[in-house]
């Protein structure tokens, strides 16, 4: 009897018609009991507003805030994402130090140019905020297409396809990171120096990362003949 009811439950779970499948899987590793903990509020504006009476956060425990969720005014989504991308073996502190040091170098470079600029018009053209420079550089490095691998007739084709903005951003960051790691390989220079230089070049649409993007565009262009494979059934 018990076995039969379990089987029925399993069928219910697997039923595709139900609006939301009931998950019976437990998180593999967490210190937080999912039934007892809620996410913390990290937005300062929301934090000062009172909770509704029915809000479960009134009755449950709250998870500790993530180290990169602290509500500081200089928090930047793009920079945080890049820090996570530079992360190696979980040493986030080191990754953050390196990226922030590169930001400092960028700021000093821009500031010196600003200080030496003779006229007010020239001064106002120089962006001093390193976070803005960083975001713009990442934007400049984003590819317009991507290449996907499709097998047609036993042959793998690199087929150009449209790319979502989030993926384009990821591709730009990954390309930038790999180029900087290559430059800093075996202590030729430090990662932060390479990163600062590369970002400043990318800000002016120059440098190795921009070149890599253009190479990639050329490859997409060369493979445009395969574009129709994307709509063709395999």
């Amino acid at each position: 009897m018990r076995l039969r009811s379990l089987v029925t439950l399993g069928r219910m779970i697997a039923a595709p018609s139900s609006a939301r499948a009931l998950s019976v899987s437990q998180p593999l590793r967490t210190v937080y009991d999912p039934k007892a903990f809620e996410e913390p509020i990290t937005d300062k504006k929301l934090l000062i507003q009172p909770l509704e009476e029915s809000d479960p956060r009134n009755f449950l425990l709250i998870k500790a805030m993530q180290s990169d969720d602290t509500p500081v005014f200089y928090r930047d989504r793009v920079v945080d994402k890049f820090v996570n991308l530079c992360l190696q073996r979980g040493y986030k502190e080191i990754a953050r130090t390196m990226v922030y040091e590169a930001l400092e170098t960028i700021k000093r470079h821009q500031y010196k140019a600003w200080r030496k600029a003779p006229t007010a018009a020239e001064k106002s053209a120089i962006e001093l905020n390193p976070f803005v420079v960083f975001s713009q550089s990442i934007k400049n490095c984003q590819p317009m297409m991507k290449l996907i691998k499709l097998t047609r007739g036993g042959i793998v084709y690199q087929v150009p396809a449209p790319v979502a903005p989030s993926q384009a951003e990821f591709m730009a960051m990954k390309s930038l990171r790999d180029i900087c790691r290559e430059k800093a390989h075996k202590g030729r220079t430090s990662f932060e120096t390479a990163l600062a230089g590369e970002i400043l070049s990318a800000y002016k649409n120059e440098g190795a990362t921009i070149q890599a993007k253009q190479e990639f565009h050329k490859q997409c262009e060369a493979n445009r003949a395969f574009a129709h494979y994307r709509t063709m059934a395999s």
Partner: protein
Amino acid sequence: MNAARRSTALLIGASRTRFASLRTCSTQTLRTYRASTNDPGDLAISDVGKFYEVAPEALDHLQFKRNLTKEQRKQYDTLGEYLWMCRRPYLEAVNCLQAVRPSFPSLNVVLWGKFGTGKSMTLFQLTHYAYSQGWVVLHVHNVLKWTRGRDEIAMSAYKPGRIDTPIAAQALLSEFKSMNTPNWSKLSECKTERAYEWSKVETTAKGSPITDIVDMGITTPHLATDCFGALVEELKRHASDSKFKLLVTIDHGNSIFHSTKVKRADATYAPAMDLSINQQLVKFAHNDWSNGACVLVVDKKEFYPSHDLLVVPVDTPLELLGEKGFEVLDPFIPIETTLYSMDEAEAAYSYYYDKRWITSDKGRSSDGKKELLYISAFNPYMFERMCAIV
């Protein structure tokens, strides 16, 4: 920048009184941050928390590129000017130095305080003060350089068992020469008390200028340690004879009394007092001379990495000097370097605001200012680090 972790820990230490004054701090009113004078000797208590400008030539003579930290060098390079804040510990120390005279025995001053509160900076400001007042200055940049360093060593010919550190001694002598460029002619008028026989070939006759000893040490490194020892004796003697006023500034001064990584012939680590150079520096702390002062910084770097926040060591002089060191220096004047007061922090913010070094719109807003001050927990080092990115 490890700002997030460090500042969190520092935030815990920030005093509650400052949080109480959060409501009253007027945010957008820019204070005048310039001191009434640029002469380091004329700064008064009304100038506390304000900046005075330092001439680049003086800093070149004082070898600031070697003696200041990487962050400070970068900052001066970027902003293109040399502004230092006049703070209370500096004025206290200057007050002590103004009491120096031939009839008083030499003063011992100990600078102590938390990481990033400006111990080394105050020390360097004092060397600049003495330099501008025409004193003879002997600045020791870092004692750890020879107690922890891997430079070559030599056994002393002067006293068996002692260890010479030729490279460090030579560097000290050449720095002494550079720092006292304006006083060099005055120093060359001072004559040696006795004849020195450095080796079979090299000698300095009795009555020759003491600058000869410095030049001898700079040109012949293997004699540099002995030359430095002779220079110490001569400087003390001439200062007592009121030929000049003498200021000795030693950074990481407590390391003179602790352990070393210098190995003896039997592969054991030599105690710090076995190094000739430490023996010679300690002589400045003895009160057998007058018309001068010896200022030391006690730093926990001797025991812990300076950025270590997991271990919370005590910053006080007795703990850092050890009983032996304390006895040698006693009696001394302890001066504590502290975190920024609200006025000082606001002046520092105003300076960066005015120079447009704080670039982001959020950082230039009143909320951004509050965040900068409180996240850096009024720690001067942390505040500078925070401002370097926003």
